[in-house]
């Protein structure tokens, strides 16, 4: 296609739900009443909630219009660094919506839910194989929930050794969830600075690691898109002081079939099924954050655990050292089905290929754009690369301006202003599911924007022009919060 992607089209305005209802309408077919009314004590009953009354047509138009104001992976390239916005295969959705799965009650006797238990058991095995770890829990609901689980496991492990440690080492490139998860249970995050190459040095870790430090939280590949080359040495330093290594596995999409994290000294890590394993993000969730551990942490995993005996599956609570439960039931089962379905559809060779192509795409973007945007760490990257707005500063154009302008060109912007160690960071993760043509178009768009920055910066300051709304007043939103209508 010769024309740029971004175009304008008819977009419809749509009021808030309660601005369009009318008493007497309903979009719900009530079942036939086959029992007598038995009124409850009036003291216990209220007026009923103040919900609008709408017809089915009202509802369908409302949400169809709203959906058209959104941009998803199905709309176009979504190179959001650290988020792995890869294509979400449609067969996953089909499998997850099978009536036997959607209709299943979580407290069914084991004999009546063998298929679900078997799927979970096998998914655990697959994830253990991919990560090289010994045991898995599927219970955590998201990546941050997995981190929380990991911190609880580390805490329980030290407690079982009779020690109470108070600190945990967290690199300055970490996701905000890392220090937040650590602090939730009283660990004091101790920051460690990455070196000029954007990596952790064993010396820096050795300086901080002591017998009051529970361990370290490492993201690998890290948020600069670089593989932590010293991971084994760092793990040895941490282990020698009795600490444990937590790996934030948010970026495992770079290394499937290439690195088994369990073989690099990692003791515990979370995976994000909604990143690496192609389950959709749903506008912010639901996700699923399985936690993988080594043998010595297995006794502490949450319950219940899926167990197998002679081809029969069951849920077992019989783990006296377990940290307990992280959700009422078994985790985001519906998300697990999609990840299972993805792994089966891909097979071992294609999983490896996916990682290879994800890394190829990121390096290609890096090479093609490094003359246009400043590249603070010029070395081979993994699945994502980080630029900055340094070269546009003279034109008074910022990362935010370029990000907003990309929308007019028909792309979702990359992650911006993260990681914090790069001023004005632009973090691009194309993922393996973008073709060369799509990526070339993205690169051309960015080059065009950089040219505009030099010639007509106002175009960027006023961007986006083609979206449903222009830039929004976030200051007033925060000063005078209006959180409900």
């Amino acid at each position, binding site marked *: 296609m010769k024309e740029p992607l971004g175009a304008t089209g008819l977009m419809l305005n749509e009021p808030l739900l309660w601005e369009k209802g009318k008493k007497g309408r309903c979009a719900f077919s009530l079942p036939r009443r086959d029992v007598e009314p038995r009124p409850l004590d009036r003291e216990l009953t209220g007026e009923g909630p103040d919900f609008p009354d709408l017809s089915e047509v009202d509802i369908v138009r409302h949400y169809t219009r709203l959906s058209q104001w959104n941009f998803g992976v199905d709309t176009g390239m979504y190179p959001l660094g650290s988020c792995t916005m890869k294509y979400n295969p449609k067969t996953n959705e089909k499998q997850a919506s099978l009536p036997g799965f959607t209709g299943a009650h979580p407290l069914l006797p084991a004999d009546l839910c063998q298929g679900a238990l078997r799927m979970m058991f096998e998914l655990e095995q697959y994830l253990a194989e991919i990560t090289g770890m010994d045991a898995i829990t599927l219970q955590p609901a998201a990546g941050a929930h997995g981190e929380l689980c990991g911190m609880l496991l580390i805490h329980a492990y030290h407690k079982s050794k009779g020690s109470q440690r108070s600190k945990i080492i967290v690199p300055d490139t970490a996701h905000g969830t890392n220090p937040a998860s650590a602090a939730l249970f009283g660990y004091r995050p101790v920051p460690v600075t990455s070196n000029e190459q954007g990596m952790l040095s064993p010396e820096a870790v050795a300086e901080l690691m002591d017998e009051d430090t529970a361990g370290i939280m490492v993201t690998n590949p890290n948020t600069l898109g670089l593989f932590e080359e010293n991971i084994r040495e760092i793990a040895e330093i941490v282990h020698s002081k009795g600490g444990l290594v937590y790996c934030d596995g948010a970026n495992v999409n770079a290394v499937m079939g290439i690195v088994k994290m369990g073989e690099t000294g990692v003791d515990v890590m979370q995976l994000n099924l909604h990143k690496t394993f192609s389950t959709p993000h749903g506008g912010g969730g639901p996700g699923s954050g399985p936690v993988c551990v080594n043998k010595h942490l297995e006794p502490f995993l949450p319950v219940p655990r899926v167990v197998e005996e002679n081809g029969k599956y069951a849920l077992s609570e019989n783990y006296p050292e377990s940290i307990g439960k992280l959700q009422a039931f078994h985790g985001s089962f519906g998300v697990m089905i999609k990840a299972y379905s993805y792994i089966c559809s891909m097979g071992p060779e294609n999983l490896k290929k996916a990682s290879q192509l994800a890394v190829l795409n990121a390096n290609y973007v890096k090479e093609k754009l490094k003359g246009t945007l400043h590249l603070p760490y010029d070395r081979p990257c993994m699945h994502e690369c980080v630029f900055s707005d340094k070269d546009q500063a003279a034109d008074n154009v910022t990362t935010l301006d370029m990000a907003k302008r990309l929308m007019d060109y028909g792309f979702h912007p990359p992650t911006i*202003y993260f990681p914090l160690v790069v001023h004005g960071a632009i973090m691009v993760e194309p993922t393996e599911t973008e073709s060369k043509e799509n990526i070339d178009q993205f690169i051309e768009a960015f080059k065009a924007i950089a040219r505009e920055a030099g010639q007509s910066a106002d175009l960027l300051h006023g961007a986006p022009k083609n979206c449903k709304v222009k830039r929004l007043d*976030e*200051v007033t939103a*925060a*000063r005078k919060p209006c959180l409900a209508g």
Partner: protein
Amino acid sequence: MKKISELDLPDDIRYAEDHEWARLEGDKIRTGIDDYAQDQLGDIVFVELPQVGDTFKKGEEFATVESVKAVSECYLPVGGEITAVNTALEESPELVNKSPYGDGWFVEVKLNDPSELDALMTNKDYLEKLKGAE
């Protein structure tokens, strides 16, 4: 953002390293954040203040200021007991941007040790420090 030469740094108040100011009013000190800090933070959307009666040592965190995407801690430039807080900031945090030394003040402190005030920078020293950091 303002150039250093454009900053408003009155000469009747003292300045702390972390960009708080202090002004003696009777036996009390009034304090807030200075023009440099409010300018760096941008539009301030919320100020979290301590309660009257709380006591702090010099340099202790006593408040936080929030812009849309950042949170900064504020450190009390002199030690003492909080005797008043600027409740107007609850509804109008923008006062900190508009009038950092006037209506945008944070708290009033009953000073423990008057020498702590003398140890703070004058506007000249502070300006030199800012220039040095540039």
